[in-house]
């Protein structure tokens, strides 16, 4: 939360009850928590009726509450279903906002260039991109919002047909970074610059430059500012291969780990069973959860190999540790899986280094969880 973005109290506290972003956030949070769409919409539309700036409502109220929803889920205080319901309510309020704004558009709107906003293939969290699309619309861009999980061929076909001045690409899950890289490369190959955003691109957007994105923005406001300044078109290069951006991939560790993912998960589960006899008493559901956890670790390890950054794995382990501890499970349950993976991957020096760092992070965790969210969205 960034209270600095809120205007001072006296600026909004007019005669009678005039909601501030702070009070509106509390009210909206209470409404979405109770799945009360009517009340939630009431909070937002009251604010707009009071003359609040729609961009501020989107970013300082809705996006902030959505962020809190993520935090509450991470802390184990909100179920997945409640999180989905809250997201759906936000999504529909945003849709209604854009319909409400449409007839009142001032002449001379859509003065800025056309922008396509899309989520990376395999990315289902569309709300941050949706909010960006609305902010850009408010700022006069013609926006094509392509939604969640856009397969790169669809994105490319759309760009050939519309030739926008830029593509804004959103991804929140780090394991989608290889897919994001493919999308960035494909879009740039047709001469369209790519602005990326979302938690997947790491703290400070460190993976954005690594994957050759033309720009990165920490939030929708910054993204709109960047697009307003203009992002130059990428220089078309005839041959750009993945290894041109990521020379470390020639060691094949990423390729081998991701190609043999299923086998690696199977072997690791088998190894765990040998190490931990208690696993034989697991219920089917417990077994499935364990297999899923191992699969996640392997996915993050593969992505760490792709980006050549151990931090990608260690941050995931740290975050998973928080999630587990919030649900009463010690983070150390992750350690045996890493130990078995070390045995499975003994011929992979980079992977081994990352696993050693991962185990060190689990080992060094304090006992009190901090519950961060996987990243700062929107």
């Amino acid at each position, binding site marked *: 939360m960034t209270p600095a973005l809120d205007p001072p109290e006296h600026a909004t506290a007019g005669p009678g009850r005039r909601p501030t972003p702070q009070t509106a956030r509390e009210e909206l949070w209470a409404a979405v928590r109770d799945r009360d*769409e*009517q009340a939630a919409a009431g909070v937002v539309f009251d604010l707009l009726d009071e003359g609040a700036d729609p961009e501020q409502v989107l970013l300082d109220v809705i996006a902030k509450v959505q962020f809190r929803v993520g935090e509450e889920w991470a802390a184990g205080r909100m179920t997945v279903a409640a999180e*989905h319901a809250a997201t759906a309510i936000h999504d529909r309020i945003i*849709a*209604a906002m854009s319909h409400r704004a449409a007839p009142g558009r001032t002449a001379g709107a859509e003065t800025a260039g056309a922008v396509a906003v899309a989520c990376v293939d395999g990315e289902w969290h569309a709300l941050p991109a949706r909010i960006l699309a609305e902010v850009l619309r408010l700022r006069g861009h013609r926006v094509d919002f392509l939604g969640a999980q856009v397969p790169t061929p669809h994105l490319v076909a759309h*760009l050939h047909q519309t*030739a926008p001045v830029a593509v804004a690409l959103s991804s929140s899950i780090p394991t989608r970074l290889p897919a994001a890289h493919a999308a960035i490369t494909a879009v740039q190959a047709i001469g369209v610059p790519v602005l990326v955003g979302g938690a997947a691109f790491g703290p400070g957007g460190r993976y954005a430059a690594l994957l050759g994105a033309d720009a990165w923005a920490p939030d929708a406001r910054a993204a709109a500012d960047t697009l307003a300044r203009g992002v130059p078109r990428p220089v078309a290069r005839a041959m750009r291969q993945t290894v041109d951006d990521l020379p470390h991939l020639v060691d094949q560790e990423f390729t081998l780990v991701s190609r043999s993912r299923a086998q690696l998960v199977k072997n690791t589960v088998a190894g765990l069973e040998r190490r931990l006899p208690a696993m034989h008493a697991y219920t089917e559901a417990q077994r499935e959860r364990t297999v899923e956890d191992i699969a996640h670790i392997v996915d993050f390890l593969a992505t760490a190999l792709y980006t050549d950054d151990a931090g990608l794995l260690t941050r995931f382990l740290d975050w998973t540790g928080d999630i587990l501890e919030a649900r009463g499970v010690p983070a150390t349950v992750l350690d045996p899986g890493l130990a078995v993976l070390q045995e499975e991957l003994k011929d992979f020096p980079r992977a081994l280094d990352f696993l050693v760092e991962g185990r060190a992070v689990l080992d060094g965790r304090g006992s009190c969880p901090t519950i961060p969210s996987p990243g700062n969205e929107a």
Partner: protein
Amino acid sequence: MTTFEGASRQPRGLVRHVGASWMQAPYPALVADAAGGVVQANAAAARLFPGAVSGAWLDTAVPGWLADAHRRASDDGASARPVRGRHEDLTLEAHPTVGADGDIVWWLVDDTDRVLAETALQSERRRTAFLADASTQLLASLNVQRCMEVTVQLAAANLADAAMLVLPAAGRRHPLAVSVGGGPVRHSSARIDPAAVSGLAEALQGFPPVPSRWIDPATLPPWANPEGFDGPAGSVVVTPLPGHGVPAGALILLRRGDHAAFDASEEVFARIFAARAGAALSAARLYTEQAGITATLMVELLPPKLHQVQGVEFAGGYRASRDTERIGGDFYDVHPGAGPGQDTLAVLGDVCGKGLDAAVLTGKIRTTLQALLPMADDHRKLLQLLNGTLLTSRHARYATLVLASVRREGRLTRLRLTSGGHPRPLIVRRNGEVEEADTAGTLIGALPDVNARTAEIDLHPGEACLLYTDGITEARGGPLGDVLFGTRRLREALADCAGMPAEAIVERVQMLAGEWIGDRAHDDMAVVAISVPHSNHLTAVDGHTRGRYTA
């Protein structure tokens, strides 16, 4: 011509060392002493420098650069370096050999041809690099506007001071794009008379390649004099852009008065560039036309956008088996009832097969069902009629589908669900229990007769019904790579969905199935959720209400 005093003087050390044969050497050579006087010049050198007679000063006999080089070489001694310079039309390379007595033999090599060849090679290399780069940029986009931009920008930056691209008329107007000095491109569309620019009309009509033409800049019409192109045009060339069989347009290249006119090789080069630009533009136009046709034909086949009807929420999600396609063999539709008391009919189905062929049949089924809507009260009859239509069609395919008639009665939402050989709909209760609707029937379009049993289900607020195709339950993947997603996982997922709005249910099911599949191959997948909102009042915001809504 040669003046040689060898007979009257003792050959000096160096000359003696080199021997007499150098006098007849085909390459020019001359010997000068440390003071800068010519000692000897061989026949070839004498032809080159007639004044280089014995005793003459180098300064008067040879070009300045060589005399200067001689002074430097005398100072440097053995480490003297070769020099090069021009003499009349020639380029000469002079290599010094310094003798012990301070005399220097200058061996001269005429490398005029090599220099010319190198210059030509460099210029060709620049052009080839430019063309390669231009091709990369031109072929990058299949968008006509973008291709026009790249063409004029490259032309204005590399071939001329300003470039204007004129496309064949669309209707009565010609699309134009202009760039001055490779700067930002201005697009416009104007009613122009191509005949006003000599050669332009021919270029646009696709007459055999017109040679680039010299045009008197003074005769240019105002529209061909781009804004920002200050000063009078010094020279103008019109180059046709040959497309694939049809003219793709014409390029007008302008140079400022103080800039050199186009020479023959530059014109040829402009034509080569124009050919590439024309090919790229043609491809882009072809793609745009095809994409337009596809989009028009596909509109009816795309899954529709669903929304709420009489306070009941409908949401659908679709994923084609191939990522490159948007349509396939699964389909869904929601037909709102004609009046307030009328049932809303939702249908979701799966045609045997996938890809475009299957999609075409889904279109046919959807159209037939729409025509049969008045029969929707009797699901079995509707299925029978549809069955008859499919049996007589030329498609040898069958389909499975499920019908859901939805009626709102106060707080209750009554569903009539009928499966025609399709996976049974799942009902999500408020408490998280998931039930299968007890309906069954034969598939459609395979047998002459159709049997079907309808299930009647009541939904309370916060409850939902899910229609899905087997693409979801038969999705293979998971952490171990080869496991079916299965009905159990779907039911578990739905148990978490109690109280969720329809869109959220669809999204969750799609997301779980999508994550299960990962990057593996999969079948078409379609889901429709029918949900009754949690709260008592009608859903506040449906994304279609304008402005402020009322409850």
